């Protein structure tokens, strides 16, 4: 049996991609449970911070998704740890402070438009944590995107935000039930309170991930943004 601390739940179309932390002696490393037939889960009724028991087959995914492990049975929730403590563990797992260290490879700029990508044979992993100097979320033509500055001063623009909770929060903010001017109110929130709430959080932390190879390229995305959004923030705008 493996004990897995769930740290990432990301949206992958209609399904979810899940990553957790596993302790191996003194080392903590990221593990991505996948099914025998797919990389994602259509139903995943757990939260970040949940400690789950599961059976993972010692299967190593192809580069750079070396964290993949096939889940043989289902998940059973054992306990949960608070958000702050999740970050304590994340800081002990894969972390980097500069662009080339994130995935152990050169990251390339999209020559045609926006976004950054890694070449699968070059990338040494597909997930990494980091602290940001600054971070901004914005809606670009209905798509949620993040722009952030690493502690090295390097800037990453237009990363797709796939964090389930943040995506749910944005969708809730734009729900028709919330009345008029929803988009303008959300943009005001993202430009003001959001910034304060996230960056003033003493355990503010993000995890970046690489997509599965798509036309031989793995694109960068924002997997997790901690602190996670709180439902009562919706009352503030």
């Amino acid at each position: 049996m493996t004990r897995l601390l769930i740290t990432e739940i990301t949206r992958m179309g209609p399904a979810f991609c899940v990553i957790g932390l596993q302790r191996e002696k003194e080392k903590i490393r990221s593990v991505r449970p996948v099914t025998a037939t797919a990389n994602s889960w259509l139903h995943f009724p757990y939260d970040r911070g949940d400690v789950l028991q599961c059976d993972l087959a010692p299967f190593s995914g192809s580069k750079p998704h070396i964290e993949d492990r096939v889940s043989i049975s289902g998940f059973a929730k054992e306990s949960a740890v608070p958000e702050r403590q999740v970050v304590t563990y994340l800081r002990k797992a894969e972390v980097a402070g500069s662009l080339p260290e994130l995935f152990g490879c050169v990251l390339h700029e999209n020559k045609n438009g926006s976004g950054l990508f890694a070449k699968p044979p070059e990338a040494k992993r597909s997930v990494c944590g980091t602290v940001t100097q600054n971070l901004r979320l914005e809606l670009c033509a209905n798509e949620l995107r993040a722009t952030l500055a690493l502690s090295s001063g390097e800037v990453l623009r237009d990363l797709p935000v796939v964090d389930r909770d943040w995506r749910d929060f944005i969708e809730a903010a734009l729900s028709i039930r919330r009345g008029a001017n929803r988009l303008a109110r959300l943009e005001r929130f993202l430009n003001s309170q959001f910034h304060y709430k996230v960056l003033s959080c003493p355990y503010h932390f993000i995890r970046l991930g690489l997509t599965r190879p798509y036309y031989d390229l793995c694109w960068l995305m924002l997997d997790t943004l901690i602190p996670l959004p709180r439902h009562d923030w919706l009352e503030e705008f």
Partner: protein
Amino acid sequence: MVSIEGKKRFRHLVEECFRREVGSDVSIPDPVQDLLETGVLDSMGWVSFLRAVESASGINDLGELLTERTPSLENIFQAFRDAKAESLLHETQSSDTRKASTKSSVIIVSSSAAVGSRRIPSEEIDRAFGMPAGKLRLRAGIETLAYADEEENELTLGARAAQQALHAAACGARELDWIIVTSETHRGYPSLSAQLHSQLLTRENCGALDVGGACLGLLNGLAVAQGLFASGQASTIAVITSDVHSRTFQPGRVAGEFGGLFGDGASAFLLRARNGSTPQRAYALGEFFFGCAGQYAGAIRVADAPGGHLEVHFDGEGLSRAAITRLGKVILDVELRSGIARSTVQGLATHQPNPRLVTLLAKQLALAPDKFPAVAQTFGNLGSSTCGVALDAVLQSARHLPPSDAAPIFLASLGPGLLFGGGWLVSV
């Protein structure tokens, strides 16, 4: 109302960006087609495409305007019409903006360049930096470097270039309303602009302004000058660049792979508001655009270190990749924004980190290498003056052509950060 010409240009720009995203063999979809739902683009491609349109059109809130709208070409065209209608409204409401619309009527009446008097074979520089002889020639394509002699510095080179430009236009220094100066090597006060102000004997009430940006400095200076003309603050401006690297990037202070690339030089451009007395041959400033690709911030860093030393972080490979990618992107954006095909230009005055990269860039853009004046090959990387010396060379090459044959000139440069900027000049 947006002009038909403006609409056509925007449509062409959108289609070009679309082809860049999906490939030139894909036909342009029906304008009302939902590009995401029909699988023409995925969400990554959709945002990437929009960012390309924003960058090429200068409409920076296109993504915002399209939120809560179907992702279709028609909605992009509608957002363009909305954005233009709004900006026209602002223009009619603001007399300042009306003045700004005259920005295209700034002309370069003369130009000049001055490089360090000593011409050093690159093998000599290899030896001085303790590198194998031939490394700079083979790896970077640098044949000789221009080094300042003992009497030369940023002030003397800059002043020489400026005097030559003034003489070429028969313009007295007292006519200058501003001198705008950029240098990536001059440190100390009085600033270089103040020193040049005194050296050139301009009027006491001629403004003196130093602008930064390192290798992007010339474009920054031209854009600032354009703004001063547009706001009615000036009728004659000198934009001057001057860089003496050979005293800063010395053997023992920095690695030869970095310090060995640089030479010393200056350039000067005399700008005037266009009026009835436009000289027979002149180029007018087109538009400029700028930005900062912060993902490359770590590729080059130079900072003071204790004991008067320099701390240089130089990721040569990373910087080369960044330079080629970004310069290519800027030139394509200049092409889209100006509506001028890059194959038809008189020349390209770009930053030239080293000659090898210029060759690669020319190849990538399918341009003849001789469209880029051989500045770095003969003089080394001159910092902010690379673009200046290159621009002067292109302008001189057009001097004897009949007006109808003088084609536009593209400008593109980079600076640490990674700052980038582009623009163009057209013959008038």
